[in-house]
């Protein structure tokens, strides 16, 4: 009896081991599934940044928020790009689908992507004219919109050529065998209006941007922002960066807009 019990326990252990082996060393299910990748600008882009969310009472709306994305990979498996998406159209909270990646079943832990100058052959939801314009100008991010406070309106249309590699984004999506999960590249538009490059608790602030409209035509341009010396400002601190004008400050902020699955973080590759 004792022997039978011992043998039974050994058999159970062996079967358990075989089951673990067939499932993978870490107990994850075997097989493949699909990881859908979307890109979303949240209500801040699709609707507005409400006045209550800015420190100085300006409300911001975007007419366009184009982002060029490439280099998407989930745990090292690539999704062929490049892409350009306009994040302004309403996605009903779902974001815009980019594509799917066949992955091993289990937890997809890492998503990488790059926001860089647009390629002329990019796909996505952006119009052919917009893609061509971005590629021609070398833009990675192209935004247009307006800030409104009471009877004041300041418009802007800015193109940025920054290139940022977001790596090791902590997506943690569990993909079942023959199943599908979704990782969302999330773009935080409010970062463009942050008033500190290092603080973990910056304000979303418009006053200094609005005041840059030197010619009073109601539109703040790159040249006008470049003319604003921020070195005497109480906010707009830059740490050790060699940044002394407002355009360059916002340009650095464009390298911080990328996140994952809402508020998830990514590393930025040097």
């Amino acid at each position: 009896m004792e022997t039978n019990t011992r043998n039974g326990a050994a058999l159970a252990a062996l079967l358990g081991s075989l089951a673990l082996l067939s499932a993978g060393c870490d107990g994850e299910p075997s097989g493949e599934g699909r990881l859908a990748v979307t890109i979303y600008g949240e209500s801040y882009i699709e609707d507005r940044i409400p006045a209550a969310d800015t420190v100085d009472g300006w409300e911001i709306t975007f007419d366009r928020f184009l982002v060029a994305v490439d280099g998407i990979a989930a745990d090292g498996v690539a999704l062929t790009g490049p892409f350009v998406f306009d994040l302004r159209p309403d996605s009903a909270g779902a974001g815009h689908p980019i594509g799917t990646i066949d992955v091993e079943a289990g937890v997809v832990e890492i998503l990488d992507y790059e926001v860089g100058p647009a390629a002329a052959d990019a796909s996505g939801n952006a119009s052919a004219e917009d893609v061509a314009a971005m590629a021609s100008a070398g833009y990675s991010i192209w935004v247009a919109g307006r800030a409104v406070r009471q009877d004041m309106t300041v418009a802007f249309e800015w193109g940025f050529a920054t290139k940022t590699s977001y790596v090791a984004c902590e997506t943690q999506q569990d993909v079942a065998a023959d199943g599908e999960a979704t990782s969302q590249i999330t773009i935080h538009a409010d970062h463009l209006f942050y008033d500190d490059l290092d603080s973990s608790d910056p304000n979303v602030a418009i006053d200094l941007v609005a005041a840059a409209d030197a010619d009073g035509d109601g539109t703040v341009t790159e040249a006008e922002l470049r003319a604003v010396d921020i070195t005497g400002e109480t906010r707009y601190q830059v740490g050790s960066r060699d940044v002394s004008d407002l355009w360059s400050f916002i340009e650095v902020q464009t390298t911080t807009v990328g996140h994952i699955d809402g508020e998830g973080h990514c590393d930025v590759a040097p």
Partner: protein
Amino acid sequence: MTTPTHGVGRKALVATLALTGLGGCDFDTKLAPRVELDIVVDASGIVEHDNDLGYHIELTRCRVALADIELTTDGEMHASLGQRALDGIHDFFVPSAYAHPGHAAGGEIVGELPGRFVFDWREDGRVLGLATMLVANYSGANFGLSRAEATDGLDPDDPIIGHTFDIAGTATLDGVTVTFEVVLDQDEGRQIIGVPLDLTVDEDTEEAIGLSLAIVDPVESDTVFDGVDFHALDDDADGHVVLVPETEAYNRVRRQLQAHDHYLTQVR
């Protein structure tokens, strides 16, 4: 005043584990090679100088409150230090360069002197403490700018309490001298990342590491007080100027003091 560490945080705890070889997954009990080196104040950066407006400036006081000095490598380690030990430290010690303001970048942290320190940058040779350092080729240093507290061993009426810097001096232009002072705040948690350090540490290393404030950036020659027109600030013509918050002069000085360009290390 230099004050001892008030507590051992998670970082330090993990460091201790890693440094003693207990942080590895295989429970390797072999001690990772390490040394303890003095971190001292280096006054060589506090020099008489001229700012960009031509004022000749001499400091008579230059106190600071800082915290948690970290020593970093660019990844080049001595072979005697197992990669597992480095990984163990790296996972917990290296703040990721998260795509978000406020997050740090820099090398891998393999040495540290935790604690809070309030001192005058002119006090050359003053020992801040013994840093625990793994055997490695060091390439940088980081530290936090803090706010002084009464518990730092200060008199209750010490003007630096609640502030980061307490600086005073004289500024002379065209034969007219004004005295000046500024009690200056940096945001809590503001980090100085990437102060250059060139030091190879092995088990026989005995040098100290001097930490200095370079009033004049040795590379670009800009100064902490560039843009400050002291005579223009002396509204009442009493020969004394106080730089106050929310003013351009104060903000300029504050900005300069948060740039790593103005901090150096000296192996001594």
